[in-house]
């Protein structure tokens, strides 16, 4: 468990990522079924990588995990997603509270362009209606940016707009913005696909560092990245005309070195997909 203590107000933040568990998740867009009965445990202090060819439903699965899936008007789903044992889809469960506990980083960096770097970091606190954070503002900004590995680069230009940063810096700013609301889980949807190799490495370092504090689930098309950052790996596949599902899940090392299923072996060795 890792704990952060604010010097100004003595506010203590206890980071010990949540346990996320999907139980029999199926998903549809209209009448098109894209996921069939996917179950997956995502333990705390673990980076879980979701790999698989395009269109196999891994991004949809990720968006089911913090209820972003239902933003698409025709989207429907079945099954349960348990965060520390509680179903986030249960009636009476507030969607905004869920999303605050399960943060998300997107494929394309999306800082709020009209806001300064500092305002971007604390924007989530305002939006999520967090109370009594203003006296800790500077501390939150510094801690979040440090955790995202961006503090040193931007500490002298916090008032500049977020859009003035490079793509890789913007993505880390988005990570800092997500971390500022102290989520228990961080979902990352191909966070490095728009970044150059150097920025990718910085983001991967960030992921390795925050894993002690936040449960991370990452979708990636990059096998090396999955091997580098994750401890657990789930291989998704949607065979011709059927909805996607998990073929194999296990320790990353095992998935890459001695996969049980032949299709996993073919995919991780680059024979298709």
């Amino acid at each position, binding site marked *: 468990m890792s704990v952060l203590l604010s010097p100004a107000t003595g506010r203590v933040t206890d980071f010990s990522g949540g346990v996320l568990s999907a139980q029999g998740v199926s998903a549809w867009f209209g009448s098109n079924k894209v996921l069939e009965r996917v179950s997956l445990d995502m333990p705390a202090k673990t980076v879980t990588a979701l790999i698989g060819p395009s269109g196999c439903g891994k991004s949809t699965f990720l968006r089911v995990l913090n209820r972003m899936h239902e933003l698409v008007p025709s989207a429907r789903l079945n099954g349960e997603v348990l965060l520390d044992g509680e179903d986030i889809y249960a009636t009476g469960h507030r969607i905004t509270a869920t*999303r605050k506990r399960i943060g998300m980083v997107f494929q394309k960096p999306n800082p*709020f362009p009209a806001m300064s770097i500092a305002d971007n970091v604390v924007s*989530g606190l305002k939006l*999520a209606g967090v109370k009594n954070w203003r006296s800790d503002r500077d501390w939150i900004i510094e801690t979040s940016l440090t955790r995202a590995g961006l503090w040193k680069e931007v500490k002298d230009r916090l008032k500049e707009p977020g859009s003035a940063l490079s793509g890789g810096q913007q993505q880390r700013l988005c990570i800092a*913005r997500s971390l500022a609301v102290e989520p228990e889980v961080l979902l990352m949807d191909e966070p490095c696909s728009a970044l150059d190799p150097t920025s990718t490495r910085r983001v991967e370092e960030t992921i390795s560092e925050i894993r002690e504090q936040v449960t991370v689930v990452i979708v990636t098309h990059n096998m090396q990245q999955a091997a580098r950052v994750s401890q657990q790996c789930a291989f998704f596949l949607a065979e011709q005309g059927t909805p996607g599902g998990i073929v194999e899940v296990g320790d990353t090392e095992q998935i890459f070195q001695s996969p049980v299923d032949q299709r996993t072996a073919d995919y991780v060795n680059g024979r298709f997909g």
Partner: protein
Amino acid sequence: MTILIDLGQTPLPDPSGVDEDRPRAIDPALPRVDRIFYAGARAVGVLVLLIMGAIGVFLGVQSIPTFKRYGLSFFTQNQWLPERDILGISAVLLGTFTVAVVALAIAFPLALSVALYISEYAVPRIKGLLVSMIDLMAAIPSIVWGLWGFFLLQPRAINLAHWLNVNLGFLPFFHVDTDPNAPVWAQSRYAASAFIAGIAVSMMVLPMAAAVMRQVFSQAPLGEREAALALGSTKWGMIRTVVLPFGRGGIIGGTMLSMGRALGETIAVVLIISPSFDIKFRPLEVGTSTVSALIAGRFGEATSAQLSALLTAGFVLFIITLIVNTLAATIVSRSRSGAVTD
């Protein structure tokens, strides 16, 4: 790779026989169909500018005698008495702005709410229905709005005007020069006012303002919307953080475009107001006049000198609307709306 195009000359072959590194000539010729289309499109574009310019020049030339005769007093005189050779547009200009301000004060909040509802909250079926209803609203002839304002709206609006005067009459712009608490209140003092004309005009400019706003709102980037929602924002929080800042240019620009339209609206205003040339800012009170209503009302019986004066008033309105619309267009195009966010 950079290709430099030098249309002026073809590089001469190097006499020494060694190739020199100079920009080479590239044939700039467009295919014939492209050239024809280009010329046609440019001609239409120039024509629009020419027509616009010609109107301005015509009005300007026609105004010269009036400006010579009345000078600056044309702008300061409030009475319009051609038979006594007293002419000025200060009262009608003020009336024009009063009607426009009333119209915008009503149309702006309505248009903003309608645009937000359509772009953010309405389910697709209702959205389509509402969009076509608003477009239909824009297609209603202004004479119909005028009749609506006169026969349907006025008998009801005077009650509101009376209520405003009784309860908020201490504010100068809600004041009406009559005894508000008289046992039988003077209904005629509240009729035919800039307020009622403004309501009718607001209905006419609402569709345009709402359409411009809706369009920019719907362009707010999905990435930023999802970012806000994924942080745990409510829908309203997302709208405030992403949609409204993104659409600010469209909000201002759409409102100013409506202002341009409201300033020039004629026939509905003519039907509703009773002409008055007092310098006052009491929208609820009977009587006002606008530039376009003045022209419409006096055009038929005008002598040539009076005609010049009317055209001068039109010229002033033309310039004002031109400025307002140009400002609006600049604001819309300079805002972030439509620009890619990276």
